[in-house]
């Protein structure tokens, strides 16, 4: 494949295409990784808007419980009689918000966009190893998104068992209205999503291993590629387990098996299930579910590392330690799933083991945080919007990560498990952080994707409002959680015990609404810059990596001539002995110049 492209890559008049691209092959069923990346991004953005809108709705219900609201009446229809949100749809909103944000936005939208865009460009490849599989991967993702959105319109309601869909609640339509057709569609959508994710991951792995250009050894790879590569490996290891859990659940639901169900009496009748265990499902779910949070955060870490180095005009500090910590996190991430299950009824001895492995993850995470801080130390920081989001990423990653010390400790988890403390923790450490990583990536690589620049002042406005609102929403939640308020409560008004938290909940909701509306600034910037943004230069941020050696106008095969060779690592910023403060990877070493052996 690469050989054939190579030959016509040498022709001078490459811009005149040999095979004429029609609208359909160029914009819809494209096999070009750059177009597929944009497709992922735009689909992810649309899903993100839906997910955020849902969160604003259920936050309004929490702040002003059971108060009529015109917005609910307008958007929820029969689920909000007289504008009062129904308890079932509240749970459904919470469930679908979680599913959409974790999988459709922060897995496919983030990893799908940037792995596709950057892997071939940064390693020096004409395209992915299999362009066709790549296209299939996107269209499966699109299909699963469509099914997930359609499930919102099911008569008995969408899935409402929490994004973790623990059976028996998710298995029995008698237990929850959303566990009928809504849950079936959820499961089908996720099964297709997993197939899409696996095709994508295999492609990324093969491409990184096989298609690196001459000189691009593994220790010269930008950290973005390391992050995408390891993420893909974790995905291949853990996603199939979720698929198996989903399939077994489908069998329990539709074919009367008892994998996860046993001894159930509901609505006046005993069900036939015997011998299964919901705890088994929890194990299978979290065997993916925990690595999943690293599938979300590692690509963000990679993007942030790259952007921080480039905008600090400094090499990333501790390149090898950064790789080692990515690998350590990846390994540990597969043996900590039990910390979601300390009080599930699992053997307490297992709880001890998982406490131990979980707290170990803090070590590579701390190394990464310190290395980022040292990277900006004595730098020459270019405060582009991407850089602000990267600094914001480190800030929220630290704030959110630290409380993991409490949640990972089984003895302490007993009391804050499933409270707002957990919500605060994971939204900061993987939700907001990963979102910041994604925004940083979009601001930074927008010129590469669309050939135009985003407006920086709108970017600043977007960042600062978002940053303040993110803390405003999630910081006080820690305290509400420590006061014992359980998550997923439709209203707290049945508990006078929590009355003194009501004002805090109103403030949180106000921050959430402002933060949500602020995203309009971003959406405007994103879509209008596509057409009216300032034309981009070839290398606007003066970065060293190979993607900035390709022409601004996208061509199939990426480089008009031969693929550049690589002579150095990707972090030669402000290297002594050079006139400019960056030396691209394709510039040969000067005579007598040593490549840094770190």
């Amino acid at each position, binding site marked *: 494949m690469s050989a054939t492209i190579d030959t016509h890559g040498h022709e001078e008049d490459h811009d005149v295409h040999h095979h004429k691209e029609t609208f359909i092959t160029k914009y819809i069923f494209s096999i070009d990784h750059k177009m597929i990346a944009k497709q992922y991004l735009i689909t992810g953005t649309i899903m993100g808007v839906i997910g955020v809108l849902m969160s604003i709705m259920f936050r309004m219900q929490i702040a002003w419980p059971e108060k009529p609201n*015109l*917005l609910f009446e307008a958007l929820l229809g029969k689920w909000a009689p007289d504008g009062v949100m129904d308890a079932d749809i509240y*749970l459904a909103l919470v469930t679908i918000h979680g599913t959409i944000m974790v999988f459709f936005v922060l897995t496919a939208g983030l990893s799908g966009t940037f792995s596709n865009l950057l892997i071939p460009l940064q390693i020096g490849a004409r395209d992915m190893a299999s362009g066709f599989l790549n296209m299939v991967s996107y269209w499966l993702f699109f299909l699963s998104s469509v099914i997930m959105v359609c499930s919102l319109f099911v008569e008995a309601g969408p899935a409402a068992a929490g994004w973790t869909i*623990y059976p*028996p*609640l998710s298995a029995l339509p008698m*237990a929850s209205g959303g566990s009928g057709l809504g849950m079936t569609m959820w499961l089908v959508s996720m099964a297709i999503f997993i197939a899409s994710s696996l095709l994508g991951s295999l492609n990324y792995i093969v491409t990184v291993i096989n298609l690196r250009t001459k000189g691009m050894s593994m220790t010269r790879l930008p950290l973005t590629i390391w992050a995408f590569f390891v993420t893909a490996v974790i995905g291949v290891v853990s996603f199939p387990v979720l698929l198996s859990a989903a399939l077994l659940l489908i069998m329990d639901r539709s074919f009367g098996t008892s994998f996860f*169900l046993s*001894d159930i009496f*509901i609505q006046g009748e005993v069900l036939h299930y015997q011998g299964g265990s*919901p705890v088994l499902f929890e194990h299978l779910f979290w065997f993916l579910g925990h690595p999943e949070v690293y599938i979300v955060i590692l690509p963000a870490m990679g993007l942030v590392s790259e952007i921080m180095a480039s905008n600090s*005009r*400094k*090499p990333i500090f*501790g390149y090898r330690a950064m790789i080692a910590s990515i690998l350590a996190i990846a390994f540990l991430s597969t043996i900590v799933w039990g910390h979601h299950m300390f*009080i599930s009824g699992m053997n307490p001895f297992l709880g001890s083991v998982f406490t131990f492995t979980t*707290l170990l993850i*803090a*070590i590579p995470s701390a*190394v990464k945080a310190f290395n980022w*801080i*040292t990277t*900006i*130390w004595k*730098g*020459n920081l270019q*405060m*582009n919007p991407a850089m602000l989001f990267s*600094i914001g990423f480190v800030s929220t990653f630290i704030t959110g990560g*630290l409380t993991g*010390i*409490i949640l990972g*400790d*089984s*003895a*302490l988890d007993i*009391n*804050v498990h499933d*409270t707002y403390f957990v919500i605060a923790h994971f939204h900061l450490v993987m939700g907001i952080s990963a979102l910041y990583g994604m925004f940083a990536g979009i601001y930074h690589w927008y010129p590469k994707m669309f050939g135009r620049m985003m407006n*920086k002042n*709108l970017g600043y406005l977007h960042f*600062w409002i978002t*940053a303040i609102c993110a803390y405003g929403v999630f*910081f*006080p939640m*820690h305290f509400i959680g420590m*006061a*014992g308020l359980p998550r997923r409560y*439709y209203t707290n*008004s*049945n*508990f*006078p015990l929590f009355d003194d*938290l*009501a*004002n*805090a909940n109103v403030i949180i909701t106000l921050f959430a609404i402002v933060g949500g509306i602020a995203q*309009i600034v971003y959406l405007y910037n994103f879509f209008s810059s596509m057409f009216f943004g300032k034309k981009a230069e070839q290398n606007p941020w003066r970065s060293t990596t190979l993607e900035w050696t390709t022409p601004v106008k996208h061509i199939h095969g990426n480089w008009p001539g031969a693929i550049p060779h690589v002579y150095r690592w990707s972090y030669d910023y402000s290297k002594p002995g050079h006139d400019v*403060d960056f030396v691209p990877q394709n510039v040969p070493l000067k005579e007598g110049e040593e490549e*840094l052996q770190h």
Partner: protein
Amino acid sequence: MTALLTIIIVLFVAVALWQMVKIFDLAQVGTTTSQVADDHDNKINGYLMIGFLIFIYVITILSFWYLGDLPLMSNSASEHGVEVDNLMIISMVVIFIVQTLTQFVLHYFAYKYRGEKGKKALFYADNTTLEFIWTVIPVIVLAGLIIYGLFTWNDIMNIDEDEDPMVIELYAQQFNWKARYSGADNVLGKANVRLIDIDRANVLGVDEDDPNAQDDVIVTELHLPVGQPVVFKMRSQDVLHSAYMPHFRAQMNCVPGMVTQFGFTPTITTADMRENADMVEKVKNINTLRLERKAEIEESGQELIYEFDYLLLCNKICGTSHYNMQMKIIVETQEEFDAWMKEQKTFPNSLN
């Protein structure tokens, strides 16, 4: 019709915001030629970084000020709760120190090293000693926390049979709790959902022929004698539930098809807890807030004035009325407990 109008209004607001952003965008034409940050941007955003650092500190202080009575770190009402609270405080102190310092360093550096034309960054790629230091320090701190945590965890989860704990079953169903006391023999009668007989009011599926079941007592309000170790055997008849008793630092899931357990010793009676100075203040505060919404609360049928009680809450999403699945817990002296128990019907007498 109102729905349609609302959608139109929301759309108009969105369009208006969009247009405002557009005006902001167009107003800059001519003022900036490049979309890459220049010295002016670096300077402003550098200062804003310091502003943001202050914002983080302020929100931390405000949260502690308004929400920081930290009910889950003091006044635990169980024996093991004291240990949990200690560990929580130690962890919080560690987190607080690290958070304050690292956020300072991060934002201060972002301000201090903001870019200027002509400045050159330091080429500084690696320092093994530094990396060694910040690998080892977390290792030491975490080792301490892990060891303390594991001792506490084992202490909580190992139920000491020598202490002769009172056996109580907690029974969960959509959407209420029941408790079954094991009676004088301290052994629960056998039970299975297949034995549930609604017509005979055997709602827990207790085996009527089991001799151990004859002195069992089923109630809907949990009473515990102070100072008496108890072990809860938990069951659920339909979906997952979680028995969460925050004041006792206790929680365990109830899983259909299996019996889970959690044990603790309550140390403070409900009456004493109501006298507790912190609690008096908290309750007073809550009642002030409740008086402000008097009409609304009276309409909902709740008692207007709140009086403190221990609670058992469901803390695992379990369906529509998950948000209202609770049971009152009363901790009292042994005499009061015995007197209360005497009034309850035993299982055979509770059947139709």
